[in-house]
């Protein structure tokens, strides 16, 4: 018997068929009282700054899944090319895959031109891809790097618009970080000042925004050199601080020393037990 199944070549472009299914599922799940799994977002503070010799990019390291911290130390500064790095905020999978795709395409492009890739090229590739998906790819990026024309910094929004600026912040903690930048940014800063400013901006996001937390990662890109400093600053150390006069030492152990709680009285009662039966069974530890 001949089957009437004809295989169709997959259509180009993005298929929205699953969106209809998802809407139906959401309705059904609501009736049953359960909820669909939340996408893991990075609820982030990321920022970048142009200083005298290059750019400094900074990011926090918390990834959240709804109300829970999914990853306490995730890396939000992604490699694009030897001289270009990109921080990503928004949906974690979207930023990860988008930067990997563009990194791969840019490497092929650089091999084809025979030159070090330019930041403007990466910016064009990213914005054209994000615009094609009309904002459904939830990736908000801070792209920075140094090329033959000097240091450049771009902010790229999920719908595909970009801004070329001397300092940018993105993510849920961006307002806190931008406040620090607007107060203390000066053009042509030295590297140490720029690193301190970015560190303070991310710290402002970490302490004042619920979606950002843990450590501060920095990346310093100059002509011919990249410092990927992870972590630059452990703003939130995990552990219990011991009650010691010399500074605040943290230990991961939650046991307290004997004598922390004063002993008022002590009474020892021996329990007399009869041994009824004793058998030894060897364990097979081969």
């Amino acid at each position: 018997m001949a089957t009437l199944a004809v295989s169709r070549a997959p259509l180009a472009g993005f298929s929205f068929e699953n969106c209809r299914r998802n809407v139906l599922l959401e309705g059904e799940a609501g009736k049953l009282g359960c909820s669909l799994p939340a996408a893991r977002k990075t609820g982030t503070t990321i920022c970048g700054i142009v200083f005298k010799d290059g750019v400094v990019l900074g990011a926090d390291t918390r990834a959240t899944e709804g109300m829970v911290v999914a990853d306490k130390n995730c890396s939000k500064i992604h490699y694009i090319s030897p001289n270009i790095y990109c921080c990503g905020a928004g949906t974690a999978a979207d930023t990860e895959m988008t930067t990997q795709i563009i990194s791969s395409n840019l490497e092929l492009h650089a091999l084809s031109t025979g030159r070090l890739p330019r930041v403007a090229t990466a910016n064009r590739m990213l914005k054209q891809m994000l615009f094609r998906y009309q904002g459904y790819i939830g990736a908000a990026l801070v792209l920075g790097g140094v090329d033959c024309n000097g240091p450049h910094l771009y902010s790229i929004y999920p719908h595909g618009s970009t801004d070329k600026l001397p300092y940018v912040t993105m993510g849920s903690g961006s307002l806190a970080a931008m406040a620090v930048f607007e107060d203390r940014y000066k053009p042509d800063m030295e590297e140490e000042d720029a690193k301190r400013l970015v560190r303070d901006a991310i710290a402002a996001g970490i302490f004042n925004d619920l979606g950002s937390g843990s450590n501060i990662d920095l990346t310093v890109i100059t002509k011919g050199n990249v410092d990927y400093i992870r972590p630059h600053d452990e703003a939130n150390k995990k552990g219990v601080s011991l009650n010691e006069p010399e500074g605040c030492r943290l230990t991961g152990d939650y046991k307290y020393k004997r004598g922390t709680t004063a002993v008022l009285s002590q009474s020892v009662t021996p329990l007399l037990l009869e041994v009824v039966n004793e058998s030894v069974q060897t364990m097979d530890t081969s």
Partner: protein
Amino acid sequence: FNEKLYTVPQWLNEEVKTGTTIIAVEFNGGVVLGSDSRVSAGQSVVNRVMNKLSPLHDKIYCALSGSAADAQTIAEMVNYQLDVHSMEIGEDPQVRSAATLVRNISYKYKEELSAHLIVAGWDRRGGGQVFATLKGLLTRQPFAVGGSGSSYVYGFVDAEYRKGMSKEESQQFVVNSKLDRWTDKHVDKVVVPPCLIKERNTVVTKIT
């Protein structure tokens, strides 16, 4: 613990719009374009120094308003198409050609896009010209205003515009329309952003 407090702020999910006032004026020998420089996402300002006067060719510029992504993309596409077109005809393109290219995109995708570009420039045949391309129409006008703040400027431009202004008078006309004051609904809120004006010799002047 109040869950509502934690939810990601709404402006993070909002599309980035330009909340704008843009204006373009013809004079004998060229055009003057002006714009404010604020880009907003919801209630938050994401860029206070954006240049909304985007070059399509050496002597043809367009002023962007509406959705930032849509407007930037249209301007970059038309920039590319004009480059090819001018190479094919072997000379500088007409302002009408640039405006037609913008109009074609705006009309074909009028349901999907939400951006309004005012095209203005100078060419040998027609001198200074200003074209409006809202929603896919193409009309040449002595001056054009656009963007969400343009409503506040209509009264001023209607009263103050005169035919046959000189270059200096046109520049003064644009400056006096106080574009920086009428962005979106926040009329008097924030610091004055710089205002950029371009003329026939494409000298970029920043007016604070």
